[in-house]
């Protein structure tokens, strides 16, 4: 704030150079402007972020009515050249401030008007404390991030709404440029945070101020009241102050602007994407499926590779829901210009995400209603917001749930029709169309949820944690999915690199119960069963369970891990409980030991057969690999031969 004098000399010259016009700034003006400029952008950066600038503009309370407010502000930014340049340099900023002053004094927004002597532009209720907000670069970056994502989503939805089959994850720039006609969409972005510096252009500012207003002015009820008056959507002040208060609490409890923190709305989106790839939320997405999916984002392969490295924490070649959310989040962040971190941020760790994902797991019925309404038309959303303006949180919740149930039925109907991955984003449009009439209540709700962490925390606390499916460490390396591919698609298995370790790793997983087997059988236990149960376990059941893994390991792997583990768990417990009453006395122990020996021998035989099968398979696959390599070499030589011909 007190950096005014420092930048005093610069701006005048800069302003002169900016538009080729000499802009005389008086001392006071210079001081004020540089102070505002430094507030709007942290010192290390040379350009003011659009968010802060937008907020400043809003604070200037420029006269026209709310809906047309964008028309005025555009003029200002256009005139000062920021639109052209894409950011607010010092020169542009000062010109803009001058223009605001002119507008406030009633002059038209023109270059000429700022040549006059003007009073300082008035900004209502800008508090110095807002600098605190911009103090941490992380927060700033968070500000940067959230809106781009939302706008990206919104734009993708809008585009699909418009029937545009454009890749939803198109670079940030293009969607922005397209819909200036309905700038109000940006206002309705259900984010509470600022917007990104990465995006240039005017439209972003439209979106920003609304959200920024929520997040920046954390202190003042009265000031929020002022903003309420200026709001483009004419929300009532109680709503504004309510949301501002919520924002206060939010920022105090956690860092909402952390770009690596997934908001509710984003999580819902990710979960829906997960569902489009894999209907069961507890199951994995295999590597190839995920690869196809993320390749669509058009990020370069090395970056995708790195994202995978970061997000696949257990390194099993498959993504759980939490891992998928983390990966998706990283992809979105990268698309929005963030550099990928070296290590996975704390908020993207699967454990953390799973704690947060509990709500999704449980309330999957609500998700469709959350996500589907999002892409719907802007008009309904606008109205919905105003409707919700004065509502209290708790009654809204119940209303939402009812709405959610209605929406859910429609969503499920629609979702079943479109499950293919290439149309992953298209299906949202169909759902959106179906959801439009019902979307009123649900959307504002999701927005307000996303704006506060208090509500999130409350929600999370309410629901009992569903056990997240964590793959057991012991079999993570012997990737079950690799084996799955091998058994079902040989060619794909070739691509999967080296085959899993030799057969001994295979049988243990399904035959989890057989921990009591003596060491002749090469099974390493996944669950610890007391040895006593071993004797009591009937040999017949042992054989049955053992017979299952060699013959149908693929089937087992197909099932979710939780199921895979549970069924062996269930079977031994059933075995134990059933055999317990029967095998109490120790007399039949001898009989049992001989039975056991026979059982063990049969088990050994079966395992040997399995080994042989796998060894044969291994050699076959090696052959195939060789052939594929030969083909590749042949193709490469062909390419080499052809290349000189084409390059003329």
């Amino acid at each position: 704030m007190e950096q005014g004098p420092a930048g005093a000399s610069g701006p005048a010259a800069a302003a002169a150079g900016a538009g080729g016009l000499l802009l005389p700034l008086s001392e006071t003006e210079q001081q004020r402007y540089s102070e505002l400029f430094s507030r709007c952008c942290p010192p290390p950066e040379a350009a003011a972020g659009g968010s802060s600038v937008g907020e400043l503009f809003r604070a200037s309370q420029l006269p026209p009515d709310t809906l047309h407010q964008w028309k005025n502000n555009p003029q200002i930014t256009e005139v000062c050249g920021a639109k052209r340049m894409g950011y607010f340099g010092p020169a542009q900023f000062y010109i803009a401030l001058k223009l605001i002053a002119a507008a406030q004094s009633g002059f038209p927004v023109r270059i000429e008007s700022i040549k006059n002597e003007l009073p300082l532009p008035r900004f209502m209720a800008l508090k110095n404390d807002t600098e605190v907000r911009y103090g941490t670069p992380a927060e700033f970056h968070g500000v940067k991030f959230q809106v781009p994502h939302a706008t990206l989503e919104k734009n993708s939805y809008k585009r699909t709404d418009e029937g545009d089959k454009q890749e939803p994850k198109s670079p940030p720039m293009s969607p922005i440029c397209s819909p200036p006609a309905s700038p109000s969409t940006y206002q309705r972005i259900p984010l509470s945070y600022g917007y990104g510096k990465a995006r240039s252009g005017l439209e972003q500012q439209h979106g920003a101020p609304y959200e920024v207003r929520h997040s920046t002015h954390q202190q003042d009820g009265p000031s929020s009241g002022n903003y309420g008056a200026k709001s483009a959507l004419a929300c009532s002040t109680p709503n504004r102050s309510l949301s501002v208060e919520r924002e206060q609490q939010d920022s105090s409890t956690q860092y909402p602007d952390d770009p690596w923190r997934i908001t509710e709305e984003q999580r819902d989106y990710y979960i829906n994407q997960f569902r489009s790839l894999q209907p069961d939320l507890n199951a994995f997405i295999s590597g190839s499926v995920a690869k196809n999916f993320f390749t669509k984002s058009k990020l370069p392969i090395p970056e995708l590779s790195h994202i995978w490295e970061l997000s696949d924490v257990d390194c099993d070649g498959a993504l759980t829901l939490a891992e998928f959310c983390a990966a998706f989040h990283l992809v979105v962040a990268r698309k929005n210009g963030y550099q990928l971190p070296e290590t996975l941020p704390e908020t993207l760790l699967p454990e953390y995400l799973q704690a947060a994902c509990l709500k999704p797991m449980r309330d999957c019925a609500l998700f469709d209603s959350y996500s589907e309404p999002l892409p719907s038309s802007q008009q309904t959303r606008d109205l919905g917001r105003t409707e919700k303006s004065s509502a209290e949180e708790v009654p809204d919740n119940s209303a939402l749930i009812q709405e959610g149930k209605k929406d859910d039925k429609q969503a499920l109907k629609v979702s079943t029709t479109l499950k293919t991955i290439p149309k992953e984003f298209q299906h949202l449009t169909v759902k959106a169309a179906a959801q439009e009439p019902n979307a009123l209540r649900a959307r504002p709700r999701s927005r307000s949820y996303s704006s506060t962490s208090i509500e999130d925390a409350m929600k999370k606390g309410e629901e009992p944690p569903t056990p997240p499916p964590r793959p057991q460490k012991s079999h993570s390396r012997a990737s079950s999915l690799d084996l799955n591919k091998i058994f079902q698609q040989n060619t794909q298995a070739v691509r999967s690199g080296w085959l899993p370790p030799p057969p001994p790793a295979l049988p243990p997983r399904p035959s989890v119960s057989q921990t009591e087997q003596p060491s002749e059988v090469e099974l390493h236990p996944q669950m610890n069963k007391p040895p006593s149960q071993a004797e009591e376990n009937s040999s017949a059941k042992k054989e049955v369970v053992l017979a299952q893994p060699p013959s149908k390991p693929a089937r087992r792997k197909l099932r979710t891990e939780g199921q895979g583990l549970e069924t062996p768990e269930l079977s031994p417990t059933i075995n134990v409980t059933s055999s317990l009453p029967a095998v109490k006395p120790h007399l039949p122990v001898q009989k049992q030991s001989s039975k056991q020996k026979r059982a063990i021998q049969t088990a050994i035989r079966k395992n040997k057969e399995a080994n042989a099968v796998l060894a044969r398979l291994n050699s076959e696959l090696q052959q195939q690999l060789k052939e594929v390599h030969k083909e590749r070499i042949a193709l490469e030589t062909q390419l080499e031969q052809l290349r000189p011909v084409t390059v003329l």
Partner: protein
Amino acid sequence: MAVCIAVIAKENYPLYIRSVPTENELKFHYTVHTSLDVVDEKISAMGKALVDQRELYLGLLYPTEDYKVYGYVTNSKVKFVMVVDSSNTALRDNEIRSMFRKLHNSYTDIMCNPFYNPGDRIHSRAFDTMVNSMMMQVC
């Protein structure tokens, strides 16, 4: 305290090679290249026995006056070659084995990445980190 670590593909081209920055890094590359002969010799020396029976760790491939070269082969014929400073006599066989095990684990992690095509050069940051740690200190 490895001086140079290399991952060689089945077709004997390098997937990854990293050495401690010295003025003559090519020397290490050359050493690794020549050591491949020894690796092949050891593999074939084990005969046509089943792959299962072959030990993955090959041990000391050959020593020179300045350093020693150790080898390790996976079941898919991907070779890890490690050049270690001879002056570091504190390095025991077990430690070398553990280093190779870590390398192998990291390599499988890379394999699990669907964006990695077998036969590509390895550009994984996690792998780099692990190799760096191995070169900095004995593990």
